[in-house]
């Protein structure tokens, strides 16, 4: 019970300005499209909400009635097991109904556009659409055209907000803070929406971010996002509190852009030998699925520094928070609109 006391103590000791900002932190967005547009307060609200949901999923009955009667559609234009399953589990833990649509078995095959598909899904009285698409900006376009809430589960090379949020949540849970941490992201930065969302989120929360990749896989002007850039993996690991290892995305048809797989492993792979020169407790993260022996060795992936499987668990808590917050904001916007309408009459 000392937990409550500590918490109260912390709140009492906070400067008034902090308390005010905590109170003000409200979620008013019907959609979650990316971390670029979010304020630090909004990021912190999602993370603290996710903390509460982590408690829920550790209960024996891992379910709360919060989104009872709501329907979530997972609309995936790219193959995904991990993210789709994670969203499905998260929605079910909140008592929502879930429908999965993957495009290889739907009318998209017959030429239906994203907006038409979205409007048809909405006509089925769906409340939240979780969308993954291979075009950057697809989630935002869908959000503008439907009344339902939209959560971006990855759009092209642009953003993958819930993945970055679960990475940041894991960091915070393990290291107690984000402010001042040195976080290195190693891998195909150019084609990675995970990298971009992580950079937005981490820098807003005060972490020092270094990106590391072969020169051809570092986008031009990435420094403008407030990160350090290097092509030397040992330098990237040297002072890092955590390293986020990205998957080499061979399916994205970029095989000509970087050296062959074995050469990549030799020059950039995260191995036990390389970690010897890093901080002893460095956290090793990976958004999955892992390519063992390409970007990370098996010993590291399964080793004591790895939090890769905890990331998967935390993903459920973070996605529950995202679903809850957009649903809540959506309901409030609707009820406000209703009262305004009533007053006019």
């Amino acid at each position, binding site marked *: *019970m000392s*937990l*409550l*006391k500590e918490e*109260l103590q912390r*709140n*009492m000791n906070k400067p008034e300005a902090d308390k005010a900002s*905590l109170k003000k*932190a*409200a*979620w008013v967005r019907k959609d979650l499209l990316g971390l670029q547009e979010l304020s630090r307060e909004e990021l912190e*609200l999602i993370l*603290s*909400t996710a*903390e*509460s*949901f982590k*408690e*829920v999923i550790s*209960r*024996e*009955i891992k*379910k*709360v*009635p*919060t989104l009872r009667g709501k329907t979530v559609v997972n609309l995936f234009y790219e193959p995904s097991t991990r993210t789709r399953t994670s969203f499905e589990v998260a929605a079910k833990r909140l008592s929502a109904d879930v429908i999965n649509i993957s495009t290889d078995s739907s009318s998209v095959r017959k030429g239906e556009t994203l907006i038409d598909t979205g409007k048809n899904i909405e006509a089925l009285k769906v409340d939240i659409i979780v969308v993954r698409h291979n075009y950057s900006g697809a989630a935002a376009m869908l959000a503008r055209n439907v009344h339902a809430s939209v959560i971006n589960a990855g759009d092209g090379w642009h953003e993958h907000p819930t993945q970055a949020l679960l990475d940041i949540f894991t960091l915070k849970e393990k290291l107690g803070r984000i402010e001042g941490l040195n976080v290195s992201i190693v891998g195909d930065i150019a084609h990675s929406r995970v990298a971009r969302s992580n950079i937005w989120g981490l820098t807003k929360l005060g972490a020092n971010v270094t990106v590391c990749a072969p020169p051809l896989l570092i986008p031009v002007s990435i420094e403008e996002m407030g990160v350090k850039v290097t092509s030397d993996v040992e330098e990237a690991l040297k002072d890092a509190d955590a390293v986020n290892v990205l998957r080499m995305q061979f399916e994205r048809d970029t095989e000509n852009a970087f050296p062959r797989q074995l050469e990549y492993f030799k020059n950039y792979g995260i191995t036990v030998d390389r970690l010897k020169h890093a901080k002893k407790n460095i956290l090793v993260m990976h958004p999955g699925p892992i390519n063992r022996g390409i970007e990370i060795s098996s010993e590291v992936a399964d080793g004591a520094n790895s939090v890769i499987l905890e990331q998967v668990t935390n993903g459920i808590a973070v996605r529950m*928070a995202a679903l*809850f917050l957009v649903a*809540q*904001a959506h*309901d*409030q916007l*609707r*009820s406000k609109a209703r009262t305004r309408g009533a007053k006019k009459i």
Partner: protein
Amino acid sequence: MLMKEKSRIMDKNGLVRTLTRMAHEILEKNKGTEDLVIVGVRTRGAVLAERLAALMEDIDGYKPPVGVLDITLYRDDLSSIAQQPVVHKTEIDFDIQDKKVILVDDVLYTGRTIRAALDEIVDFGRPLFIQLAVLLDRGHRELPIRADYVGKNIPTSLKETVEVRLQETDGVDEVVVMENME
């Protein structure tokens, strides 16, 4: 909303006396602290639960375990309340199966908070029974719910609100009735 203090119901000493009496009543009715657990509803109910448990320890020599309930996820009014509640953690670190649960809140009003709290508790297990202890009962119930232990009954009008202020959360121990002047 312009609120004006209408009357002061309890000061520090009054609060201590009331809570001490409630602790005695709970122990008397349950014949001691055996199998007793205390669960408080965030935020002020949790503080009161902690205080009641400490008082029971003074009387009976054993402090029952105390848990904290955050009922936000079980509310029935997420869309209609003006201010978004922030979701906090529920912390029940003990088994409630076959335990005597004393549910504690500061003010009993419509009964909807208690409805949500009951739903949440049974998701943690099947207690032997649940009893309700509230510092104040201000009436205006919207559900068939009543308290087993009441610190004080205060008849109020719907224009009034009752504010419980506690040292741990507000820096002062007092209960006041506020009136809406509009």
